[in-house]
């Protein structure tokens, strides 16, 4: 049994916990054992909270004995290291937060913990979530479980790799420009980016405040729906969390797509996309059409502008958000002899190259004389990108397209060319700029055996639609059941 406990989805494990066939302690111990055996090769975790996990598992088992039946009760979970966890080191993959132990939990963490989810540890990430390969972590790289010479994607690469390698059935990530969906695609798992405002950002260390969202990595769409339902909803501690009711996402999983209108955007099948990616996505769309969905072409004419808009808006917001790291309240301080020099030296030593690059870019875009030409212009084009989706969603229910133009690329391959790295996110950025929702799910493999992701995009607060389509797809395919061969 010990080996197979880590193969269980949340839904499967919850059923066994409910029956009393397994305990949370057994389930959590199996995951801790697998982390101990495998993570030296993968590098998904920055911190493993073994003692705390077993204590929480015991408490969960006790709650079950008292009659509680929550599906999350006793389920192990990993958190991206950008989410504040009370008393547990939270570094954002940066030297500048080394040793930081938040005095509070992020709202998403707190809601999952209250339902009985058991924290396994904190996962590796690109520093401050800036990157597409998890190579920008100040601490370690994370390897793709499908090919250890390749990246897991990023920035939530540790969470994606942990779920793919069966070192957690559930992990949280954050998505500012694709940082959940792209690593989910590259690691062959499900990754959901909720609509902006759906999940509270309280306790998520901010990168770009108008774009950031927290979402789950799971192996099935059913599990993603379950996790979203727990995290979603208004939070008085985040003024941008939407005061909207939370639907029963699991009830939206009907298993059929009869009558669902799927739009396929011409602009997402461009030159430079790998043939295996385009073919797998097209085959998935054809399959959904065969199940009763109606498929039509749609146009998102400003798609090619999402990248330049994003790389002005996100760094501008980041340059403001990261001003708080000055060596006064947290993190190491480099004494400079006087206040300004202490700031300069602390920040110069604490931030890595990609973070410095984006702070510089954002500072420039916001600076006197350039604000109108860069930042304001980008915000106006952002409106055009939103309007593209509004027009498309007047015609169709969901949009289907690739997640990333390529499958997992080699470690080191794109590190010297920031623009080439940024192009990994060309199909995911627009969703964040428009504030809408998207899910990535496995839809095939390329000729090297690397996973390909299918992206289903829905309108703002249209998570039920994308989950319904994704769930129906997983009922008739088995891509999501394949596991990397790791021994």
């Amino acid at each position, binding site marked *: 049994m010990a080996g197979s406990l880590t193969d269980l989805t949340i839904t499967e494990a919850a059923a066994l916990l409910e029956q009393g066939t397994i305990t949370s302690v057994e389930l959590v111990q199996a995951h801790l054992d697998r982390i101990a055996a495998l993570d030296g090769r993968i590098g998904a975790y920055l911190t493993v909270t073994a003692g705390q996990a077993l204590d929480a598992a015991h408490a969960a088992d006790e709650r079950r004995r008292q009659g509680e039946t929550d599906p999350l009760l006793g389920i192990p979970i990993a958190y991206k290291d950008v989410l504040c966890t009370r008393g547990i080191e939270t570094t954002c993959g940066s030297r500048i937060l080394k040793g*930081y*132990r938040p*005095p509070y939990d992020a709202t998403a963490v707190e809601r999952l913990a209250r339902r009985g989810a058991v924290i396994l540890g904190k996962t590796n990430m690109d520093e401050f979530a800036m990157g597409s390969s998890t190579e920008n972590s100040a601490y370690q790289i994370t390897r793709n479980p499908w090919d250890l010479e390749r990246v897991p994607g990023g920035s939530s690469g540790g969470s994606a790799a942990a779920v793919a390698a069966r070192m957690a059935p559930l992990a949280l990530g954050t998505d500012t420009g694709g940082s959940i969906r792209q690593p989910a695609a590259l690691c062959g798992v499900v990754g959901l980016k909720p609509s902006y*405002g759906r999940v509270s950002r309280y306790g998520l260390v901010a990168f770009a405040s*108008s774009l950031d969202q927290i979402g789950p990595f799971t192996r099935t769409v059913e599990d993603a729906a379950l996790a979203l339902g727990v995290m979603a909803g208004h939070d*008085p501690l985040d*003024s*941008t969390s*939407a005061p909207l009711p939370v639907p029963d996402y699991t009830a939206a999983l009907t298993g059929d797509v009869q009558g669902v209108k799927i739009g396929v955007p011409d602009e997402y099948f461009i030159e430079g996309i790998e043939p295996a990616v385009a073919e797998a996505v097209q085959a998935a769309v054809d399959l959904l059409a065969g199940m009763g969905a109606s498929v039509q072409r749609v146009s998102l004419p*400003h798609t090619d*502008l999402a*990248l*330049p808009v994003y*790389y*002005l808006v996100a760094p501008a917001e980041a340059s403001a958000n990261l*001003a708080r790291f*000055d*060596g*006064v*309240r*947290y*993190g*190491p*301080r480099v004494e*400079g*002899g*006087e*206040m*300004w020099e*202490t*700031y*300069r030296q602390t*920040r*110069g*030593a604490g931030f890595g*190259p990609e973070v*410095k*690059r984006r*702070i*510089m*870019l954002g*500072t*420039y875009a916001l600076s006197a004389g350039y604000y109108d*030409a*860069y930042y304001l*212009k*980008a*915000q*106006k*084009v*952002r*409106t*055009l990108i*939103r309007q593209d989706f509004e027009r498309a969603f007047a015609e169709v229910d969901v949009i289907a397209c690739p997640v990333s133009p390529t499958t997992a690329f080699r470690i080191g391959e794109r590190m010297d060319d*920031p*623009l080439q790295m940024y192009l990994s996110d060309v199909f995911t950025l627009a969703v964040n*700029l*428009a*504030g809408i929702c998207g899910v990535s799910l496995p839809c095939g493999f390329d000729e090297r055996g690397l996973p390909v992701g299918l992206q289903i995009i829905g309108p*703002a607060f249209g998570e039920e639609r994308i989950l319904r389509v994704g769930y129906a797809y997983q009922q008739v395919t088995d891509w999501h059941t394949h596991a990397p061969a790791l021994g």
Partner: protein
Amino acid sequence: MPALTLEQVEHIAELAKLALTDEEKARFREQLSAILDYAARLQAVDTDDIPPTANVLPVDTVLREDVSRPAMPRDDILANSPASEQGMFRVDVILEEE
């Protein structure tokens, strides 16, 4: 010919309070110039009469009841500081005495 001069790079670094090595300055000059060059394609887009999007939600000022509630424990917060004393963050001198 990079779009940014070395002086501009140094000016931006000073605005952002980032100590950069000469090697970093040279590299960022090249890389930021390439990114800005790529972003220049936005200038060709007609955005007359298009309002900017700062946030996708219709966010108004959100108010809450002004009632007292427990704060986080001071010691937990100060425990993260690289330098604190007497229940306060210790910082460099900000105002010199005349």
